[in-house]
């Protein structure tokens, strides 16, 4: 809070200093509308801020001055000398009060009522202009610097870094003396520190902007009797300090407006069928060259017709022109000075000033404000401000022999391709990675930029760009984590659609910052199906209503068939010679493995083909196919097959009859019997979703084949919830309980998340079999 007060004081002082000239000019020409507006905005801003800081005197004074000036703005009152002196007196008093707060002195005593009374139109006595503020000024602890100076410092330090690198190279070439090297290292370290410090002087997390909001929303909600749930997102986006200051006011105004005019009272909301608490969402994200700040509410929206009526009534819009305005233009009237849809004047947002201030401030920093409103459903305001100078944490990577940077905010994880955690397969020409059960499309950065990947192991970077959707980017090498100063790239560079900006690496070479959403778009990755199979990662997929993703393929005879993606281990291309009728049936050799082959007749097909490997987790078979068509989620009714066989039914997909593979039948018929017998069998209760989705993979990893109760003749292990007594018939019994503590002395159950104990028990049963 102290920071915020300091900010408020600094800001107010700065505005006062800037206003001094305006005030004198206004005194000379009270009819000057521009001066009047400037002074009005000052008192309006001070009023808003003081309300937030609980500074009642400042608030009362500024509110009174605002009222008087608003009357002048509305043309209800002439700006006469008396009013000018009264306003000046108020402004001087505001200066004194702010000064007092800053220096921690006692607030100057004095009755503000006289000043307020002097503002009213029928005040009899003009106030005497007060004496100049007291000369005793407290020492100021902070300094406000022009940002140009910081820019110059920044550029100076960058030059220093480049010179240091040059020097370092020369020193290495000559093989300098030890003491010179030590000295150079010191210089080097100081330069790094300096660069760091100067960089930081300009940057702030946008959190600084967001942190006052919860309190403000709470207070405003309490004042207006409204219930508001605030959601904040993206506070870790870093933004130029100057930008933050420029956005602070507009954001405050927008949030105030949303609560005051947008969100309805709880009763009205309930009547409209909305939840009683209004939802207000403030989020920030970096996209390309911009920071996008979005404020949305689910309130009543903006009445565009009322805006038009007001504008016509105020004379800023002719009725003829009004008739020609499109919906967006009508809505844009909200940014015109002096217009508001709210008929009542409230203490909070006043008269809908603010929106013109909002737009003025955002446009001054080269930004844009967009507004969308849906009557009865809410308003969404989007501020886009340029990323003139931001520092972002980035990962530098190499692909096709060139270094690039990736914003770390978009990176979910790094996965080395040679690790066991990931498998890559080819589906219809594009690569798909399976990382811990999740399938993601893979893009090769080197291919994307028209180069060849360097040999050696690739690394997958799982990217989750803002706006959802996940994909994996394959790069040749990962260099380092770095904090980079990103500058906007020239339009000719941005036109490539792959980059978000440029930066200089420590060695002084330019580096391109990649734009993860742009890469996805460039690669033609469907934004809606970037996550090919998020079923494994999302527990809701257990819900039977959602069909599991299926692979649509054509068999060697041309029939369209579907198989659950989860059962497909991988797909390989095999030559004709790989398939042989051996040991009484067809087998296919893929690398070192030989698998029983289904999907074709008894004779080996005389052609090259693709073979997908189907698995139930224990045994594996091959299934011959011609081509993979797509991955789909089939919807509709399954018409069961007449007789059991490799097809369990028919479903209509995209107007075509498609057969569904019967995995159970296939595996039962083709899976090598020995493999099934080799694995110990574990019985899990079929109806327990936790057991089936969470525990089952663990059990299978431990080498068990999982069966439902009654399905396996002689299970080796039966797992049950604590307290249940299943038929174990000579099998070991393992009970798992939901609570962490055992129920009593003789409770031999294991806590369901005690992974070590579970694995130990599973291993013990298997070993003792």
């Amino acid at each position: 809070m102290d920071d915020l007060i300091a900010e408020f004081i600094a800001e107010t002082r700065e505005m006062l200093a800037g206003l001094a000239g305006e005030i004198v000019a206004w005194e000379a020409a009270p009819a000057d509308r521009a001066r009047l507006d400037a002074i009005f905005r000052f008192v309006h801003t001070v009023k808003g801020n003081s309300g937030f800081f609980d500074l009642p005197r400042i608030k009362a004074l500024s509110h009174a001055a605002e009222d008087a000036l608003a009357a002048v703005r509305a043309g209800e009152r002439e700006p006469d000398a008396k009013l000018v002196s009264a306003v000046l007196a108020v402004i001087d008093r505001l200066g004194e009060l702010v000064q007092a707060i800053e220096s921690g002195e006692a607030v100057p005593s004095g009755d503000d009522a006289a000043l307020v009374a002097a503002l009213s139109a029928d005040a009899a006595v003009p106030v005497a202009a007060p004496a100049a503020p007291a000369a005793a000024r407290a020492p100021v602890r902070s300094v406000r610097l022009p940002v140009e100076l910081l820019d110059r410092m920044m550029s100076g330090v960058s030059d220093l870094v480049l010179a240091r690198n040059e020097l370092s190279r020369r020193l290495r070439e000559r093989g300098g003396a030890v003491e010179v090297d030590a000295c150079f290292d010191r210089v080097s370290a100081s330069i790094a520190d300096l660069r760091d410090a100067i960089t930081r002087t300009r940057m702030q997390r946008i959190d600084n902007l967001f942190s006052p909001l919860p309190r403000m929303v709470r207070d405003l909600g309490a004042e207006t009797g409204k219930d508001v749930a605030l959601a904040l997102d993206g506070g870790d986006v870093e933004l130029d300090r100057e930008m933050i200051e420029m956005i602070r006011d507009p954001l405050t105004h927008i949030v105030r407006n949303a609560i005051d005019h947008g969100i309805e009272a709880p009763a009205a909301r309930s009547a409209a069928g909305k939840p009683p608490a209004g939802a207000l969402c403030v989020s920030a994200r970096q996209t390309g060259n911009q920071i996008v700040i979005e404020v949305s509410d689910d309130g009543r929206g903006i009445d565009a017709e009322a805006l038009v009526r007001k504008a016509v009534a105020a004379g800023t819009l002719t009725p003829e022109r009004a008739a020609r305005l499109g919906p967006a233009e009508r809505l844009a009237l909200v940014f015109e000075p002096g217009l508001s849809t709210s008929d009542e004047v409230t203490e909070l947002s006043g008269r809908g000033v603010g929106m013109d201030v909002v737009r003025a401030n955002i446009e001054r920093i080269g930004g844009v404000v967009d507004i969308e409103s849906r009557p009865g459903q809410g308003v969404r305001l989007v501020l886009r401000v340029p990323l003139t100078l931001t520092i972002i944490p980035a990962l530098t990577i190499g692909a096709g022999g060139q270094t690039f940077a990736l914003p770390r905010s978009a990176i979910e994880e790094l996965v080395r391709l040679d690790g066991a955690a990931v498998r890559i397969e080819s589906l219809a020409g594009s690569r798909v990675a399976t990382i811990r059960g999740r399938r993601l499309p893979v893009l090769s950065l080197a291919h994307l930029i028209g180069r060849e990947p360097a040999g050696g192991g690739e690394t997958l970077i799982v990217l989750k760009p803002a706006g959802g959707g996940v994909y994996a980017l394959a790069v040749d090498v990962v260099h380092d984590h770095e904090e980079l100063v990103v500058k906007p790239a020239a339009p000719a560079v941005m036109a490539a659609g792959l980059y978000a900006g440029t930066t200089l690496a420590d060695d002084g070479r330019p580096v391109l910052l990649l734009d993860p959403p742009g890469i996805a778009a460039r690669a033609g990755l469907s934004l809606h199906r970037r996550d090919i199979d998020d079923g494994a990662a999302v527990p809701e997929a257990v819900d039977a209503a959602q069909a599991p993703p299926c692979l649509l393929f054509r068999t060697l005879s041309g029939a369209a068939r579907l198989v659950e993606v989860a059962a497909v281990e991988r797909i390989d291309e095999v030559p004709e010679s790989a398939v042989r009728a051996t040991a009484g049936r067809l087998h296919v050799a893929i690398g070192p493995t030989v698998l029983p082959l289904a999907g074709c007749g008894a004779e080996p097909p005389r052609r090259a083909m693709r073979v997908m490997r189907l698995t139930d987790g224990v045994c594996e078979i091959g299934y011959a196919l011609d081509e993979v068509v797509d991955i789909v989620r089939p919807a509709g009714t399954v018409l069961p097959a007449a007789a059991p066989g490799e097809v369990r039914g028919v479903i209509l997909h995209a107007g075509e009859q498609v057969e569904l593979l019967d995995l159970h039948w296939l595996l039962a018929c083709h899976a090598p019997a020995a493999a099934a017998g080799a694995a110990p069998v574990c019985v899990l209760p079929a109806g327990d979703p936790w057991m089936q989705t969470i525990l089952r993979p663990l059990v299978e990893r431990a080498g068990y084949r999982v069966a439902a109760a009654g399905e396996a003749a002689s299970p080796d292990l039966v797992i049950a919830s604590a307290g249940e007594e299943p038929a174990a018939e000579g099998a070991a019994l393992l009970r798992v309980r939901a609570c962490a503590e055992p129920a009593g002395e003789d409770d031999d159950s294991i806590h369901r998340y005690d992974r070590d104990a579970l694995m130990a028990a599973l291993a013990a049963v298997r070993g003792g079999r």
Partner: protein
Amino acid sequence: MSALLLLVRLGGERVALPATDVEGVVELEGVTPVPGAAPHVVGLSALRSRVVTVIDGSASIGGEPCRSRRDAVVAVIGGHPYALLVDGVEDVVAASGEPRPLPGSLGGGWSRVARAAVEAEGDLLLLLDLAAIVAGPAAEAA
């Protein structure tokens, strides 16, 4: 007083650039390519801790790429610094007269980037528009 012109060789011609638009003439060291960008965008280069976008002036007018990858004219256009590769930089001279309208037909990509004809040192030269060169051929098609 006549305008100052920077005379450069580009695409086999001697042409003039408005000297007031030009920040300086440099020799580039090392260019980072920008994969996926238009052909006339050679890449990025660092110039006194600034990242400049390197444009091949000759490729922009539809000619062969510049032979030299070093001589470049630096200019700030639309707030972005650019380095324009040319085949050679000759001199800064004063124009001996006002710019004149272009002669009727110009070949190749010249008509897109030429702003006027201007006389200097007794020759009639094309006065080129830096922004048009930087924008490249695609800008016109769009």
